[in-house]
């Protein structure tokens, strides 16, 4: 895998995603590099049929981790959608110990937080989210249902 070629083609998309979620240039750059580091480290295990989808999800997940860390450090935690999603525990506690990549590449379930962002923020339908993460629609719906209560008003606002 030629990481330069991969970056040349997909880097701008990843950078935009990180900028959109993190809203800080240097952190977005840092996160973008992290995304490709993850890819590079696991290149032997990846099936890169649709790299854009994979990279987009990895970027989303890594950015959520950063937002969560920000929230934990903040004296005045934000109350926006991403901030609320980022600090939520996954509905599958056992996922916490798993690496992002293990979840992303099919051995374990996708982060519910990532699914929430894809659905509520990016506007993907449940079917599209299901297709992204390789789950059934009912499975995605079930995972997101638990988040709705936690997200409360924020989700309502986002959906309006």
């Amino acid at each position, binding site marked *: 895998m030629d990481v330069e070629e991969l970056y*040349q083609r997909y880097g701008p998309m990843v950078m935009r995603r990180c900028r959109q979620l993190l809203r800080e240039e240097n952190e977005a750059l840092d996160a973008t590099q*992290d995304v490709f580091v993850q890819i590079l480290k696991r290149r032997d295990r990846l099936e890169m049929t649709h790299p854009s989808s994979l990279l987009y999800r990895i970027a989303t997940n890594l950015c959520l981790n950063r937002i969560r860390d920000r929230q934990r450090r903040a004296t005045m935690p934000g109350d926006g959608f991403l901030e609320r999603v980022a600090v939520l525990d996954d509905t599958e506690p056992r996922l916490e110990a798993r690496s992002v990549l293990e979840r992303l590449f099919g051995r374990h379930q996708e982060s519910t937080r990532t699914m929430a962002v894809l659905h509520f923020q990016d506007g993907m339908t449940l079917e599209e989210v299901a297709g992204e993460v390789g789950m059934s629609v009912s499975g995605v719906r079930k995972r997101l249902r638990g988040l709705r209560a936690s997200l409360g008003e924020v989700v309502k606002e986002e959906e309006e």
Partner: protein
Amino acid sequence: MTSHHDQLPGWRLERYLLQELPAEEMASVQRLVEGNPAQAARLEALRQSNEEVLARYPAGWMGRQIARRAQGPATASDAGRSPRSAWWARLWLLPAPAAVVLVALAALPLLRGVDEGGDPGLPLEIRLKGAEAHLLLHRKTEEGGERLRDGALARQHDQIQFQYQAAGQAYGLILSIDGAGQVTRHFPDQGSRAAPLQQAGVGSLEFAYELDDAPGWERFYFVTAAVPFDVDAVMSAAYRLAAASGSSADAGAQAAGAQEAGARPMGARPMGARAAGAVVAGPADLLDVPGLEQSLFTLRKERSCTRQEAP
């Protein structure tokens, strides 16, 4: 949530541009784009953004940075925390920074003063203080520590502690660029504004910094101003210049390795001056922004400290 983008959400447009949608969707999006000037404009904006990102962070430079991180002991995300949150950990775990200096002409239009009250669009008030604010670097030794002179020889694993003299400047930023083109922000470690500087005596940073195996040299920049300034703009300029200097980094390393150990007295240099003279090859132009002052401190790295480049 996607409001007016419901018809064509951003992620779908991205994949259309990359031609990674199923054939049916490709055709559907194409019809939308061709029949709707607003959607066509969004697509064009993405194309321009692609160019902007690749110009700012070229593939060659990014490839080296990514490979370097991948070879490192851990990434922040592996550790489940962000580099910013793990500032200390990052200092010691990640491929350390080193430095060529270049903060950039290209960044100049981005630099804006920021009132405490916060209008980031206000031009920076200029109050040049002369070439006074500067860094003091110390190397940890068994006996305690030794002060380093600008241009001193250093080696991998040296532990460096920072002090600064504000000399009347109120706000500052310390960053470094190394011979491998790695840019590192040292102080403040987070936030978008420069940090207030200690006015009395010598200010000390509470952390030490371990040099890695980046080749050639490490340059530390102390950028200061009388008013708060936008850190991100300066960092972006540093990234751009580091990227632009990527190909010259090796040449710089060779030049540094061949240089005699003559040290120059440390002091702030007027903006626009060449940095560190012949010690560092390649671009080394400093900031040339009215109201911002910078000083440079260069450490030369031992010649044996070579870095494995990206594959």
